């Protein structure tokens, strides 16, 4: 029982972070019908930016988080300007290939800039490693902080979409770009901010995750696969679906690691993706897609 509750708590914590990665993927996909294959590298860059600011420049945690999020936002906008805007008329293949190109440029750059300090960088913990007892469940205070922060990011995100003008522009553009253009929305600018917001969420989740795991240049792709598994499980176009999918992926991989074997943790996301795409292509909360000619 103790093992199970520990696995569940860990699963929910990592799941909340996967949900944030998935959120970024879903927001971009909803608006542009493109999955940014460099999304994981945006996450990785966010983590390294926070490391540089917090550990190397010795800024406090919260300003480092905000600056890292701003940095990811900027890289996200750059991705739109370089890969998406000039290529969206050329079709999906060109955009995907361009985002792969960007992902390797970012990965190589991170290896040059931060790779020299040993391959794996440890991010200092935010709070004391004392576990807290809630009823029968032991929870690491670190995990609790991360979980609460992830929830806060989700709420800010939801509020942004529901209440702000920019959020409503994005919703309008996602549901029908032509109609959005007709009512005077600058669609390509909305696309740009969508890429930026998706990247900013990735950056935020990277900064939250960094104290729990280690940072290394290859972490981006691993996280991207997990975030994508979560997004696809949730239907790829549904924001609540992405969050449920993220939690499910987090819990499933912890259970697989705990009861089958630790190596199963890495592989469960691939199995979920293949299973979800073949058996359940519309996801848990996705809308059945209309086949376009």
């Amino acid at each position, binding site marked *: 029982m103790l093992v199970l509750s520990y696995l569940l708590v860990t699963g929910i914590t990592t799941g909340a972070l996967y949900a944030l990665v998935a959120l970024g993927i879903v927001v971009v*996909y909803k608006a*542009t*019908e*493109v*999955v940014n294959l460099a999304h994981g590298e945006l996450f990785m860059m966010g983590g390294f930016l926070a490391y540089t600011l917090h550990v190397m420049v010795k800024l406090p945690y919260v300003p480092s988080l905000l600056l890292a999020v701003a940095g990811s936002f900027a890289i996200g906008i750059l991705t739109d300007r*370089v*890969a998406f805007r*000039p*290529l*969206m*008329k*050329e*079709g*999906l*293949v*060109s955009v*995907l*290939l*361009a985002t*792969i*190109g*960007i*992902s*390797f*440029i*970012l*990965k*190589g*750059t991170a*290896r*040059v800039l931060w*790779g020299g300090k040993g391959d794996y960088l440890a991010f200092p913990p935010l709070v004391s490693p004392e576990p807290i007892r809630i009823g029968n469940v032991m929870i690491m205070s670190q995990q609790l902080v991360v979980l609460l922060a992830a929830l806060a990011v989700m709420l800010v995100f939801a509020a942004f979409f529901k209440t702000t003008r920019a959020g409503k522009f994005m919703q309008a553009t996602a*549901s*029908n*770009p*032509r*109609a*959005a*253009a*007709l009512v005077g929305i600058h*669609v*390509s600018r909305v696309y740009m901010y969508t890429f930026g917001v998706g990247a900013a969420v990735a950056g935020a989740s990277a900064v939250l995750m960094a104290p729990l795991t280690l940072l290394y240049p290859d972490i981006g*792709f691993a996280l991207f*696969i997990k975030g*994508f*598994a979560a997004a*696809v499980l949730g239907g790829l176009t549904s924001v609540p679906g992405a969050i449920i999918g993220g939690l499910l992926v987090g819990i499933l991989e912890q259970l697989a690691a705990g009861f089958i074997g630790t*190596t199963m943790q*890495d*592989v469960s*996301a*691939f*199995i979920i*993706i*293949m299973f979800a*795409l*073949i058996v359940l*292509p519309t996801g848990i909360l996705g809308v059945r897609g209309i086949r*376009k*000619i």
Partner: protein
Amino acid sequence: MSHRAFLVVLFAALALLPIVANQYTLFVGNLMMLYIILALGLNLLVGFAGQLAFANAAMYGIGAYGAALLQVRLGLSYWIAAPCGALLAMAIGTLLAFPALRLSGIYLALATLAFAQFTQWVLLHWTTVTFGAGGFPVPQPDFSSFGVSPDRGIYYVSWVVTIVLLAFAWRVVRSRIGRAFVAMRDREMAAQALGVDLLRYKAMAFALSGFYAGTAGALYPAVLGYVSPEGFDLFQMILHKAMIVVGGMGSIVGSVIGASLLVYLLEVLRQFKATQEIVFGALLLAFVLFQPRGLVEFLKRSVPGWAEPLHYASDSESPADIAVADEVVAGSRGGATR
């Protein structure tokens, strides 16, 4: 120089290379031919049939591990193990075509990417069969009865195999199959209306590409004498993609040019992993942005006699056609911004 003459000169030079080359140059030449095979297979699938799949590196790995493990674990001779490895990759590649029937675009891309990572995981963690992360040495096939060293022997085997597969790809794209591939790529619905059986031709494209990647894989342990999971990772994926984009999507000669140039570049940058990633990422991005039809398009424009028929997507579509298509598919991506 015509495109045919270019191929003849290139392969004549490759045939003569062992006379002047040291062991390292010979190895690079051999690697070049392996990547020519890989690029040809990937180009058939992506450039001609329009299936954006990311499992090429996995097929390469399955071919290599298949051929190597059959020798090391079951003691089979290389000449039996190698074709088995290639056929295994072809069989698994064909199986991938079945999800491809239901999935398209982004879903297919990510399903195959997940499959490639799954394969990588199996190679790393199924240690009782695959020896795990460290890899394992494989004995090189014996050529002493021909009086040549193993390196030279396998070099000539690769040379013959590459030419046969090149000629085969050349024929395929000019046959009924090649035309069906191009039709399927340009518009699935239209192809179906013209009587192209999508299941059959998608399966064929995946099978062909799996066989090419598997064959390159089956040559790999004989060339290197060693296999490890690292040889078939994500970096291979971008490498193969960059080769066909730089050379030219939908071009046989383009695959050869892209593979040859990038193998050379890969060897120049051998020491620095980060530099390799940045350079190949930037090459891929730059070509997609500024020269999306690859070097062959440039050669076709500037070299008299270079006359390979190229099968571009949407070459005949005028902007007016696209506008009409956008009206029909109301609310399609980006339609409003033009």
